[in-house]
């Protein structure tokens, strides 16, 4: 009983740090670079991934004894693609501005290795509850890194957090101060640098070694 409980907790918490999809498994980097200029896009992207990953893991786990194994990849992709289109349509209807900024990256969740990876590696072999938890944990693990990178980039690149001005206006050069936003952080290389530092930090803390 205790063993089972510990395993459930581990299913959920593991992806947040020790087996984090971005920093440890280095999956989903493309979108992590693209949508992390501002925190609001990172948060909406996280929400979209939570929806898709929990949904696809749950459905795949529920159908795991019915899916013909010869066509399982295409079946899983159909499930994932359907969920991605659902979330894309919803974003277009309710948060149009953000969906415009996310542009194709919501659609590209279909090709995000995390989603198909979890379906194939976990949901096909585990119960619905465990799979949903695994999906939720992995999506949050992805989102955690996204939000951290986005916070660093928005703060250094625009001087704001969630659109609120953090660095006082009078410090800027235009207003007679000395501060200039770091333009590098708005561009993709800025994300690489922040992400690299995060991976370094996390692996040092966890004592992870490349095999």
């Amino acid at each position: 009983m205790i063993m089972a409980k510990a395993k459930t907790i581990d299913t959920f918490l593991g992806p947040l740090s020790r087996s984090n999809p971005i920093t440890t498994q280095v999956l989903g980097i493309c979108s992590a670079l693209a949508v992390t200029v501002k925190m609001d896009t990172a948060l909406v992207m996280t929400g979209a991934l939570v929806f898709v990953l929990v949904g696809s893991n749950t459905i795949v786990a529920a159908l795991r004894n019915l899916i013909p194994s010869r066509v399982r990849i295409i079946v899983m992709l159909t499930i994932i693609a359907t969920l991605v289109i659902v979330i894309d349509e919803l974003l277009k209807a309710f948060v149009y501005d953000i969906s415009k900024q996310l542009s194709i990256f919501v659609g590209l969740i279909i090709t995000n290795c995390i989603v198909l990876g979890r379906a194939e590696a976990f949901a096909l072999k585990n119960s619905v509850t465990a799979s949903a938890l695994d999906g939720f944990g992995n999506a949050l693990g992805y989102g955690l890194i996204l939000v951290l990178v986005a916070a660093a980039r928005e703060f250094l690149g625009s001087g704001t957090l969630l659109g609120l001005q953090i660095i006082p206006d009078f410090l800027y050069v235009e207003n007679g101060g000395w501060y200039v936003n770091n333009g590098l952080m708005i561009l993709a290389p800025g994300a690489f640098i922040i992400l690299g530092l995060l991976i370094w930090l996390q692996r040092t803390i966890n004592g992870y070694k490349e095999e």
Partner: protein
Amino acid sequence: MKSSNSYTYIFVIAMAIVSALLLSVLSTSLQERQEFNKLLDTRKNVLKTVDALEAGMSDMAIEELYQSSFRKKVITDTEGRERVYYLYGSPEKPEGYVLPLSGKGVWSTINGFIALESDRNTIKGISFYDHGETPGLGGEIEKDFFSGRFIGKKIFRDGELVSITIAKNKLMKPSEHAVDGLSGASLTTGAVNSLLREDLEAYLGMLKEPDKEE
């Protein structure tokens, strides 16, 4: 049974029908809202070109401002096609003209607006709101940093329409008729150059003598 061909076919077909049904229901029910958002976004972009859009305006306020400050005009261009443009401000004392832009981009049609000052020569603002250009490369045409480069440029040189050219990279010397280019977006900037020229040419009559066309 589970590994038989017929089971596989039935499973796949059932699955396709279920997801197709789900998506078509969803798409139909959200269509109205999405179209409203799209229209509002177009309105916002027209307002943006004349610098009238303020941050945090409600949907209603945007619609009202749009209705009250623009007058739709229709002209016939040189090829006999009907073209629409918008008069900003009152007809007696126009503050500007907004012309829709549309043309072939790299992946899809690029749509936008260009606003001219009342002299019908100086650019007041420009915005590209609907396009399928590569995000991060050509897609940067929608960003404010890029559209800002057009403000104050002139489309006529000694009475001759020269349009605005986006340079291949940085301008060698300052010009009234050209702006700095976007790196990694040669095809998109080429497309924008030609659509700007073509669309401005179509409005040439109105740009030279606006009153005649009304």
